[in-house]
């Protein structure tokens, strides 16, 4: 995966390229490949479990308001304290994992599917179809996802729908570009020609033989995108455009917790912040680690 090496990015293809590749969590793996990767996988596994089992795990109803117990701080009854409306923060964090993971799952799922389709068509067909698709993707890069989401929210209204659709559209060219690149490399390999010579039809070779070979790389990239999408959707919730109160959501919780900070209560905002950073770092390390393993295996 040369795409994640920051040093290689700028010289190869201009400024827009450098941002598009998002060198982000790039070199975290240098800090130690094994234990960090394992820990990150564990963090993600716990997150998924917590999201799935939220109603069983949460000690309180996440939406139960108790104004007499506002901002209690940590205590035996409320491990992470309560927010301004007296709702149990731990329970809200646990339930927040659901919207926190569902949004990015939809974004990454749809954008990876669309991107893979467009990238494969471009790489396999070549010619004018490829040129047209590449141009269209370049164009899509010029409109930042966050702006697209805000524009769509302005029209359709707040909630999960508009941000998820906008982000899925915005992430599609990232996936499309990646798939096109690696599919073109793969297509040049002798085994593809061998299948063609044996009389396999073009699309059968492409979907049944080429796609499974590049799928791991696509998956690794999706893991990284998952973290970014989580961050973007949380930002939109923070702005009040995403998941709507009183539904528990990390981004929205930070927004609501802002005023509590002024009163000296840090936990209502800091607890969900920690969850977001932890999830983003874990997805980044897992994505990096997977990409790293794939490239070493191929060498």
């Amino acid at each position, binding site marked *: 995966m040369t795409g994640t090496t*920051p*040093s290689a990015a*700028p010289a190869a293809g201009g400024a827009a390229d450098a*941002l598009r590749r998002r*060198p982000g969590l790039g070199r975290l793996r240098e800090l130690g490949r094994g234990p960090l990767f394992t820990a990150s996988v564990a963090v993600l596994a716990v997150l998924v479990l917590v999201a799935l089992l939220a109603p069983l795990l949460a000690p309180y109803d996440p939406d139960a308001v108790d104004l007499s117990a506002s901002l209690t701080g940590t205590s035996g009854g409320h491990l992470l304290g309560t927010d301004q409306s007296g709702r149990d923060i731990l329970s809200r964090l646990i339930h927040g994992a659901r919207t926190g993971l569902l949004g990015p799952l939809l974004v990454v799922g749809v954008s990876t599917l669309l991107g893979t389709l467009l990238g494969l068509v471009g790489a396999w067909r070549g010619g004018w179809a490829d040129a047209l698709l590449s141009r269209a993707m370049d164009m899509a890069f010029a409109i930042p996802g966050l702006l697209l989401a*805000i524009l769509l929210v302005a029209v359709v209204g707040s909630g999960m729908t508009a941000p998820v659709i906008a982000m899925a559209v915005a992430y599609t060219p990232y996936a499309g570009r990646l798939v096109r690149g690696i599919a073109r490399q793969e297509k040049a390999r002798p085994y593809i020609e061998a299948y063609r010579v044996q009389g396999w039809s073009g699309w059968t070779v492409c979907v049944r033989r080429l796609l499974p070979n590049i799928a791991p790389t696509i998956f690794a990239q999706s893991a990284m995108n998952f973290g970014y999408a989580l961050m973007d959707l949380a930002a939109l919730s923070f702005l009040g455009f995403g998941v709507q109160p009183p539904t528990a959501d990390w981004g929205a919780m930070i927004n609501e917790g802002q005023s509590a900070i002024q009163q000296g209560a840090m936990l209502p905002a800091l607890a969900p912040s920690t969850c977001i*950073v932890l999830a983003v770092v874990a997805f980044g390390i897992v994505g990096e680690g997977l990409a790293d393993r794939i490239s070493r295996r191929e060498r």
Partner: protein
Amino acid sequence: MTRYLVGRLLGLVTVLLVTSVVVFGALYLAPGDPVSFLLHGRPATPEAVASLRARYHLDDPLPVQYLKWLGGVLHGDFGRSAQFHQDVAGLIGSRLPGTALLVGYAAVLVAVLGLAGGVLAALRPGPLDRAVLIGTGVATATPSFVTAIALVSLFSVRLGWFPGPGGTSSGLGDRLHHLTLPAFALALTFAGLLARVTRSAMLDELGREHVEVARARGVAERSVVRRHVLRNALGPVVTVGGTMLAGLLISTSIVETAFDVPGLGSLLVQSVTAKDFAVVQAITLLSVAAFVLVNFAVDLLAPLVDPRLSLHGEGSS
């Protein structure tokens, strides 16, 4: 070279036209008819409806509506703000300085922190390098609104060094004092990225033969670093740094909202909440234009810093 420039400019114009179509067409994605969307709860008096229909040329066929709207935009007429009862252009003009000061402040921080961190990490392997790697790792994984609340809880509420969100300020010194925490919140993520790019570009150069040769010739280490390593590493750093400036523009809406800074970003968020669509259209369009233009400028300027990045190298990856 000329062909390349013309091609790039054509691409630029195409992007802006497509964006304008998207921004204009968004009006028709709204549930219900455009008039009731644009009225948004205000009484549908015949006069109000008539003035909206006239302003948005709603009685014309769709392509004509678009062209008339685009013509107005090109002349700086973005319509009227429904919430402020004011021309959008004037409103944007009054909010622009706040955002410009914030972005400028943050850009300086990104440059200073990013370059210093990257250079130090590359030159001092060991604990310092590891510290920079961990620090930038955390910085790049932390969204700006999280940085914002962390900075407020520590430096404003706990230590009281800087004012919290909101509040007014007078004079440049006071304004900069108020903008310090927002600028850091905006800058840290990008500074982390820049430090990483600088570090790896420096390390690439440090391993090159010409650096060995310079050292063998007895050139002082300071001079080797400055003239042979940093100078050569600057190309990718400038490219990425310029791109970040474009990214900063987009992230301001989050930071301005978190800190109640009166700027374009917070105006955009307010206008979305208030369904003030003309303002949303204008700021979206201007942001994309700024984003694209900055990227274009960086592509043009990068070869001046590093002649090896000649324009003909484009697309040869």
